[in-house]
């Protein structure tokens, strides 16, 4: 299956019929999830209405780290099997992950101001998220820093794999250190500790974000493929400066 889809043309043919429906799904899920979370979910007994920030903060944070994980896995594929398509996937996911990590920090600080009384603390969870953001910046920077864009792929892939160290630190920072950020409440050994009525809109939002990130990454992949075709056409025409 992966081998079959690794060919760009077959991949484009494969996603053509399902691409539009993925976009519709993401819109629907996010719409329903926003409605449920804003109007049809209970207030928190301590935090009141501000708890509703969680319904976008958690998906942003999850997908910021999940996209980094997928970038590093794609980079491992790229370095071992040298398949250029893995590199295109990694490059396409990076800008979205950067935006997600910035939005995680922004929504988190908007939530932190009323709850903790500050926009920002140098807490383990917050700092490791900031470092993830810096890694995204470095990844995008190094993959575009070379005169020929293709030369940046391998250094960027190495950087993505090195930056993987940060992911377990983000996940377990709330357990290892005594942080102001609350501990994990969904992925735990003893099942989720969150209220059922709050869990439903959150899960719907997470599904919506999943479809949305797939949709945007597909668009990015198509753009990058077109750019690559354009480059090879220019090479065929004999214009040296690419």
């Amino acid at each position, binding site marked *: 299956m992966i081998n079959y889809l690794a060919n760009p043309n077959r991949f484009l043919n494969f996603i053509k019929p399902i691409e539009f429906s993925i976009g519709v799904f993401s819109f629907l899920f996010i719409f329903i999830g926003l409605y449920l979370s804003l109007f049809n979910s209970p207030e928190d007994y301590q935090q009141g209405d501000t708890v509703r920030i969680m319904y976008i903060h958690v998906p942003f944070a999850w997908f910021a780290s999940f996209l980094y994980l997928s970038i590093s896995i794609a980079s491992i594929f790229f370095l071992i099997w040298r398949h250029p398509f893995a590199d295109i996937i990694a490059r396409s996911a990076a800008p979205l992950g950067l935006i997600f990590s910035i939005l995680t920090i922004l929504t988190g600080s908007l939530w932190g101001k009323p709850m903790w009384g500050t926009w920002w603390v140098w807490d383990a969870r917050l700092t490791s998220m900031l470092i993830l953001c810096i890694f995204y910046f*470095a990844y995008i*920077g*190094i993959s575009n820093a070379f005169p020929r864009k293709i030369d940046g792929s391998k*250094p960027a892939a190495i950087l993505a794999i*090195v*930056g993987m160290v940060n992911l377990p630190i983000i996940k377990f920072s709330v357990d290892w250190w005594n942080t102001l950020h609350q501990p994990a409440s969904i992925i735990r050994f003893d099942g989720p500790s969150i209220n059922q009525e709050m869990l439903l809109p959150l899960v719907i939002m997470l599904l919506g974000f999943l479809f949305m990130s797939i949709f945007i990454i597909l668009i990015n992949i198509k753009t990058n493929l077109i750019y690559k075709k354009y480059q090879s056409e220019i090479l065929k025409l004999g214009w040296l400066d690419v």
Partner: protein
Amino acid sequence: MKINFKNILIALIEKEFKSYLRSINNFMNIIVFMIAIIILFPLTVGPSEEKLTLVSNAIVWIALIVSIIPTLDKIYISDFKNGWLEQYYYSPLLLEIIILIKCFVFWFFLIIPLTIFIPIFSILLNIPFLIIFWNIIIFAIGSLGFCLIGSICSSLTLGTKSTNLISPLLILPLAIPIFIFGNGVVEAVKSNYDPLPNLYLLITVCLILLIISPLISAYSIKIALTK
């Protein structure tokens, strides 16, 4: 001269040492930058002693680190430009070992001499002697890890146009464990706890880097050479 491992090693160290000796400007650059930061801090924070004692240790550290970073990402750049790296690549010695030697020489001849400035700056900022002693130890150990991180970053950015822009972004996140454990040692000394656990963690980080960094650097240098 017979060609064996020992002779190659000595020749390599001699060559590196001479190249550092001839580019003494780099070293002077670091020192001038450091002095500028040390002078600027009391002027901007205000000369009152209570405020300064709170941040004095941090000032010394910031001065050292910020002034080292611009030279860190240039470990390989001159060798890359004049073709030495290719010679290293084709030499019978493993590229990893050569990188390790280069990092050690860089650390020994460019960074270790900076430790004589720590007591001078610390006395200027009224830091107690015990902490000065620990600072020197932490700096000597932590800067080796710092050089190894710099080796990763400078090999990754070989051949780029804008090295100055990317390398701080690469160096800082990787160097955070060194800062945390180094600060842990100083905090423990200040509050009369045992500083050794944090020191051991610092040494652990540097040892892990000692294993990983030459591998990654050699791989990315190979990539840079085959472009």
